[in-house]
């Protein structure tokens, strides 16, 4: 079988209804809290009401007399039973101690778990938790990263000596020279990218049954990165990773943030072992907003951009303070992940960034859809827009001129990343068509004097996919990671039915369907005939260390592994059929559930017969075939990467670059600052599609996450360090009524670097945050303020209409 077989396929590339849908539509799915378990205990965490406080005393004595009390887990026990979770940052911040309950005798953010209690029912566990008394001594706290870097700021982790988790400079090209010689230099003192999260609708649920007989922890619950999770738990609990099994079934969303589940899961595991019964923790929405993972909040300071008189952008420089909250967890990977898209969509030649990851007394950040790249791309796109407005360039032409051009691919960025393919000008043209650009400009002119202002904005982004984990070494040279792999397994059962398992863990992306499409094509079956494993199981041998669903990669890595695994199974079927039918393996083709001899369809063997022979009558086969064939294809896909050049901080950090160009037309009420989106268009290019319907669905979802984040969603903290948006009352996730109908189009630029030309996609790069900021700017016009925040609620927009940010934005030349 060759790649051409799938390229000219029956199913791959087609809009096929999803295999997942029937069970979900009939309320027959099995999400984390659905799984019935006998003798189940329930866990509730007692959490800190303070942003920063010393724990003076914990009193659980009142709980012991309550009906249904099973037991509890205290920080002192955790200190004995576990080591701190693995930290990725180098010294001195590697001194951070992160445990499943507040470590080091203090709490560091509101909502941090201090005690885990267990009861025989949800109600018993709740009542037990309510009786636990924790005596705190409040400590000075810091919730603003800008203040956290001041010398006298309160220390989130006393053992580190500062609030800096990571500090480094990236310097590619020669921005200082460019700023000196450029015709124009724009300078902005401060821009801010706010905190929000995709807030999956299903909060985390972890059920752990400790099996004492085989000393194994069995976990059930959505887990987006299972092998890394077992590794994190194994190291902390000093327990073999192979004795931690993670099973995910239906999974109500992750979008990256559930990567942090190893922390509460460790507490649940310890309780299950201690109390000798299965334990479940069902996270509440409030808990999820406190600790379930926020997206990175970032401050950009001293931003400078160099532009020629013809409107060519040479490059930029800035200082970043990335507010990671109280614990690094997956951080400080964000300090390097953004460099995957160092150039954003543009032909930049120079880029210099001083980047610092900063601890604050806020909830920890986790990777969130568009992780760390969308912050940088928002900055670049915002600066492109500010430059166009300030220097008098047409924002469309300015972008077109500076985009990486179609003929330049593969395009090497300032830091050695390789943009694989794309057609940004065509994508922009299509996006403008979607919003009827000329007509929108007419509407804009006609709106003058009506009390409403119309603005048009463009968001140009990339969705880099398939990480080279070698980039981790750029933040810590000692991290033993590089490249990327994913696993897959395809086997034929005793009756000839075909079963597939992928290492990825879907939470709505339709992996069962896309896997079935490609496997069906290779085996000559239909997707309906392929049995796809629901969710994931770390014990099924389909996974590699990097397995999971994150970083826009499944279409490359997950599908790549399944293709490789299926290829092995195809070869085995060919060997068996060839020996039975008296042909060579190369003459055997697979069609309609049969292995048949090419050009001689009378000589055919049904798959059931192939399976029957291998499983039940191997004596029918020549020994050399019987010895080789197990009707199991297990394979990995390895992304072709090298270790980056640590000295120069260069290298190819991701394999594919899907693009998203968005355009929107919005209307602003001059008296209130309210925004109404009138038209919204997205053009996606993720290479060769596997299932166009699923791609479109991902684009819709990412778009609405971005729109909602730009206008409604903000994990704001008050001066006391209290999260002001701990539920869906205060954290307004957009409803159907808040949104415009979405207009979609696509461009197909196959990737030259991937198995079938597909690119990872789904994160979307946060394009709506850019497009909306640009459209607000366009509506506000030259007389008003400059959009310097990614979050723009009505009040802020009203402020922009009244000017006010002028002094922080300067055109030096």
């Amino acid at each position: 079988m060759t790649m051409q077989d799938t390229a000219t396929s029956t199913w791959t590339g087609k809009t096929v209804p999803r295999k997942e849908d029937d069970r979900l539509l009939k309320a027959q799915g099995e999400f984390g809290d659905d799984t019935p378990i006998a003798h189940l205990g329930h866990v509730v965490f007692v959490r800190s009401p303070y942003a920063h406080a010393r724990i003076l005393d914990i009193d659980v004595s009142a709980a012991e007399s309550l009906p249904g009390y099973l037991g509890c887990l205290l920080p002192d026990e955790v200190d004995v039973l576990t080591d701190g979770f693995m930290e990725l940052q180098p010294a001195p911040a590697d001194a951070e101690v992160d445990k499943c309950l507040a470590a080091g005798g203090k709490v560091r953010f509101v909502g941090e778990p201090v005690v885990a209690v267990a009861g025989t029912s949800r109600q018993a566990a709740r009542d037990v938790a309510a009786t636990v008394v924790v005596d705190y001594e409040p400590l000075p706290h810091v919730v603003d990263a800008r203040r956290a870097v001041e010398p006298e700021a309160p220390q989130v982790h006393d053992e580190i000596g500062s609030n800096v988790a990571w500090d480094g400079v990236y310097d590619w090209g020669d921005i200082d020279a460019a700023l000196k010689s450029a015709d124009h230099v724009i300078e902005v003192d401060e821009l801010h990218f706010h905190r929000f999260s995709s807030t999956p609708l299903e909060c985390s649920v972890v059920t752990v049954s400790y099996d004492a007989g085989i000393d194994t922890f069995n976990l059930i619950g959505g887990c987006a990165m299972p092998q890394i999770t077992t590794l994190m738990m194994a190291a902390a609990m000093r327990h073999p990773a192979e004795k931690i099994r993670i099973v995910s079934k239906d999974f109500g969303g992750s979008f990256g943030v559930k990567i942090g589940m190893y922390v509460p899961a460790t507490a649940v595991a310890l309780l299950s072992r201690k109390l000798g019964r299965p334990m479940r923790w069902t996270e509440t929405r409030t808990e999820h907003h406190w600790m379930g993972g926020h997206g990175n909040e970032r401050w950009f300071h001293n931003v400078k951009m160099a532009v020629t008189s013809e409107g060519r952008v040479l490059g930029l420089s800035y200082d970043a303070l990335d507010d990671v909250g109280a614990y690094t967890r997956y951080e400080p990977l964000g300090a390097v992940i953004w460099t995957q898209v160092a150039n954003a969509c543009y032909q930049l030649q120079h880029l210099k960034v001083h980047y610092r990851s900063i601890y604050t007394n806020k909830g920890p950040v986790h990777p969130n859809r568009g992780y760390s790249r969308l912050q940088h791309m928002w900055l670049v796109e915002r600066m492109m827009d500010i430059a166009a407005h300030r220097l008098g360039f047409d924002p469309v032409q300015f972008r077109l001129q500076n985009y990486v051009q179609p003929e330049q691919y593969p395009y090497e960025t300032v830091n050695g990343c390789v943009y694989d393919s794309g057609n940004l000008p065509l994508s922009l043209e299509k996006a403008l068509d979607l919003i009827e650009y000329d007509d929108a400009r007419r509407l804009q002119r006609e709106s003058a004097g009506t009390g409403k202002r119309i603005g048009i904005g463009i968001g140009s982004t990339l969705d880099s996919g398939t990480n080279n984990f070698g980039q981790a070494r750029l933040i810590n040279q000692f991290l033993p990671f590089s490249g990327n792999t994913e696993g897959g397994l395809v086997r034929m059962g005793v009756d000839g039915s075909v079963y597939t398992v992928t290492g990825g863990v879907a939470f709505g992306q339709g992996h069962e369907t896309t896997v079935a499409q490609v496997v069906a094509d290779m085996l000559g079956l239909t997707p309906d005939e392929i049995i796809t494993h629901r969710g994931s199981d770390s014990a099924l041998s389909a996974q590699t260390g990097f397995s999971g669903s994150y970083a826009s990669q499944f279409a490359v890595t997950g599908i790549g592994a399944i293709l490789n695994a299926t290829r092995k199974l195809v070869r085995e079927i060919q060997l068996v059929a060839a020996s039975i039918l008296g042909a060579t393996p190369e003459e055997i083709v697979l069609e309609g559930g049969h292995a048949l001899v090419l050009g001689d369809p009378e000589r055919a063997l049904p798959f059931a017969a192939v399976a029957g022979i291998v499983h039940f009558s191997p004596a029918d086969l020549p020994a050399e075939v019987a010895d080789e064939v197990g009707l199991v294809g297990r394979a990995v896909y390895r992304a072709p990467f090298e270790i980056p050049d640590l000295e120069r901080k260069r290298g190819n950090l991701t394999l594919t670059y899907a693009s998203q160009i968005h355009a929107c037309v919005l209307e602003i009420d001059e008296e209130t600052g309210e925004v109404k989106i009138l038209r919204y268009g997205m053009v996606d290019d993720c290479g060769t599609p596997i299932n166009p319907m699923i791609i479109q669905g991902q684009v819709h979802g990412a778009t609405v996450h971005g729109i909602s984040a730009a206008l409604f969603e903000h994990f704001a903290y008050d001066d006391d360090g209290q999260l002001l948006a701990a539920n869906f009352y205060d954290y307004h996730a957009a409803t159907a009524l808040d949104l415009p109908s979405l207009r979609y189009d696509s461009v197909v630029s196959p990737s030259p670097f991937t198995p079938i030309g597909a690119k990872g996609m789904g994160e979307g790069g946060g394009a709506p945050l850019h497009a909306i900021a640009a459209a607000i700017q366009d509506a506000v016009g030259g007389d008003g303020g400059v959009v310097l925040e990614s979050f723009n609620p009505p009040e802020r927009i009203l402020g922009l209409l009244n000017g006010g940010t002028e002094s922080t934005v300067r055109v030096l030349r």
Partner: protein
Amino acid sequence: MTQPQDEMLPISVTVDGRLETGQVSSRTLLVHWLRDDLDKRGPKIGCDTGNCGACTIRWDGLLVKSCMVLAAQADDTRVETAASLAHDDGSLNDLQACFKEHHGLQCGYCTSGMLMTATDLLESGEEITEHSVRRGLKGNICRCTGYENIVRAVRAAAGHDVEKPHGAAEEVAS
């Protein structure tokens, strides 16, 4: 004031056409009884403030969020969850089929609630427009689909001629 104690109350509720009886504590929410005692997986919990609508059911014919109702209040009433929607032979009903055709679900967690709300809207006799569907669904949060395909699916179920998913038209043509 002394710490109040729960009382156990007998209830009997017709759930998805079947009479179910049980003992519930006075503070048990209907959603928890349906899920934990009856293994009904339609109603889901996505928030703790009554906003997300994942727990939506019909209760004596009225659409409600079962996380804001006590199980004790449901005694001697009738409850329908999303598990009651499919045809008796297990095939999808029209609305479910439209959700499938129009890719109106991704992770599937909001889906049962969405289906219940959409069913109520479609049966209400209210005029179905894009706007009325969006308004009708505003008590149900979805974090995956961006609602676009849900709105299309509901309109399709109402007989509207809506845009097919990307790539679907092509398949029909071939």
